[in-house]
């Protein structure tokens, strides 16, 4: 896996300097290693070395049954764990041909959109921090804390939920859920202009992001980039619009695209997506139907022999779950198509020819979650 680094080959021969960016510490959650070849300040080559946090989740899933394997996916893209669990449940339900109660479907979409908001808030804070502003991080976490409190009430955990199970959700909503979400929405909408005051309107921030890290539409398609990163390059790729799952086809929301192709466009797309998520939650929060939160399932789930694929839109892009079943209680093979891996592969195109100082800004805008890349 680990190729011989080019530190030894290059330095001293042609005047290029090779530097290592990361990993800072083996126990950090995002352990990514970039080997960057520099000509002066200009990046001429960028080589990501991955695998530091590889836990072989796909192989592990082969020994777990169809109820158990869902929990491992919370550990892939830990910022959108609800959405990962949703993807797995959709694939299993496709195999079982289960009908999901309407209440469970609405709860799932609500949780998905709250997760997307929480993820984008953390991205906003960390991107501002990458660029050099520390205060926004605390502002972002103040609102994110309200969402994690809502999750804690209903799901019992704050980060790795395992709340969605094949057939519905694990428990019914907490009685305070609707009221707490409304309080959060009200406060978040009041605070969003503050986000703009602090970061969006800042000329220094704009100058550091505009025209930096260009990813053309053709490159985005050929690298398989998805999510807000691709939509900022003008690629229409929102799974919620193109291949609707759950009740997304009945909802009114816009797919945000931008043709700027640069770091600033990716920033704007994510900020607008937050507003769209708020809009989706507002439509659903008063319309949660009564009924069961879980469909009746057998004690032991057995998928018929065949191949099942489901795709969802996580906060970072398209997540695909591919299950091959031999008819037993455990899957024969599971493959996750994670958005982070494809988005990382386009990094070199984005930063090549740019300055080393812009590299961190570009990395912040792509919103990489490393356990999602390594799995």
């Amino acid at each position, binding site marked *: 896996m680990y190729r011989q680094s080019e530190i030894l080959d290059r330095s001293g021969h042609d005047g290029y300097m090779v530097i290592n960016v990361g990993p800072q510490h083996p126990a950090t959650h995002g352990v990514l290693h970039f080997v960057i070849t520099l000509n002066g300040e200009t990046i001429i080559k960028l080589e990501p070395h991955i695998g530091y946090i590889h836990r072989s989740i796909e192989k592990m899933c082969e020994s*777990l049954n169809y*109820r*158990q*394997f869902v*929990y*491992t996916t919370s550990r892939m893209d830990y910022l959108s764990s609800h959405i990962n669990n949703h993807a797995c449940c959709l694939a299993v339900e496709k195999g079982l041909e289960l009908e999901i109660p309407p209440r469970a479907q609405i709860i799932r979409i609500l949780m998905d959109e709250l997760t997307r908001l929480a993820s984008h808030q953390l991205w906003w804070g960390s991107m501002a921090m990458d660029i050099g*502003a520390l*205060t926004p991080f605390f502002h972002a976490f*103040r609102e994110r*804390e309200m969402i994690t*409190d809502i999750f*804690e*009430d*209903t*799901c*019992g*955990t704050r980060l*790795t939920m*395992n709340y969605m*199970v094949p057939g519905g959700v*694990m*428990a019914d909503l*907490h009685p305070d859920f609707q009221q707490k979400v409304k309080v959060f929405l009200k406060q978040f909408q009041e605070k969003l202009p*503050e986000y703009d*005051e*602090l*970061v969006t*309107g*800042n*000329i*220094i921030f704009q*100058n550091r992001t505009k025209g930096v890290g260009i990813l053309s539409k053709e490159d985005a398609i050929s690298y398989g980039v998805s999510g807000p990163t691709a939509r900022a390059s003008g690629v229409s790729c929102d799974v919620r619009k193109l291949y609707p799952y759950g009740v997304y086809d009945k909802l009114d929301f816009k797919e945000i695209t931008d043709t700027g192709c640069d770091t600033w466009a990716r920033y704007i797309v994510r900020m607008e997506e937050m507003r769209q998520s708020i809009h989706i939650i507002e439509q659903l929060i008063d319309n949660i139907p009564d009924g069961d939160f879980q469909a009746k399932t057998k004690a032991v789930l057995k998928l018929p022999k065949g191949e099942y694929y489901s795709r969802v839109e996580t906060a970072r892009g398209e997540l695909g779950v591919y299950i091959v079943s031999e008819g037993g209680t455990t899957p024969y093979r599971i493959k996750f198509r994670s958005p982070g891996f494809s988005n990382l592969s386009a990094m070199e195109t984005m930063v090549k020819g740019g300055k080393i100082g812009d590299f961190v800004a570009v990395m912040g805008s792509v919103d990489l979650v490393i356990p999602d890349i390594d799995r």
Partner: protein
Amino acid sequence: MFVTQYIKDVFGAIKSLGIGMRRTLWYFVRPKEIITQQYPDNKDTLVLAERFRGEVVMPHDENNEHACTGCTACELACPNGSIKIVTKFDITPEGKRKKAIDQFVYRLDMCTMCNMCVVACPSDAIIMANDFEHSVYDRTRLTKILNKPGSKVRDGIE
């Protein structure tokens, strides 16, 4: 042209920084808006969500009786093998052999708080407790035996 743009940028930057700093100062003079919790100091008043998944516990009533029949549904549901149930056979007053748990071994160090065992339990014998301060000095203390010594299964639970 370039120079005017440069000067414009510099003054624009100062202005936008001022807007940002005004917001920061607004919070500086309003300490009530700060929501940081002083965690170890507020231990007595700390309220956790009732569903918070801290660790698996087995509630016992005043007669030192629990509801676990030793059916191993939780052991089968656990994805990472952190539950092991050792069963024994009790002799009932009528002289019949009845299956009961000897030890409910729970390994907190392997548990991921996924709640699958609690959902799987048919007699609601185990629940998730709110305790979240798990750090100990010795790793072996994280392997717990959940049923109390001398406890037995409550009457009427099959």
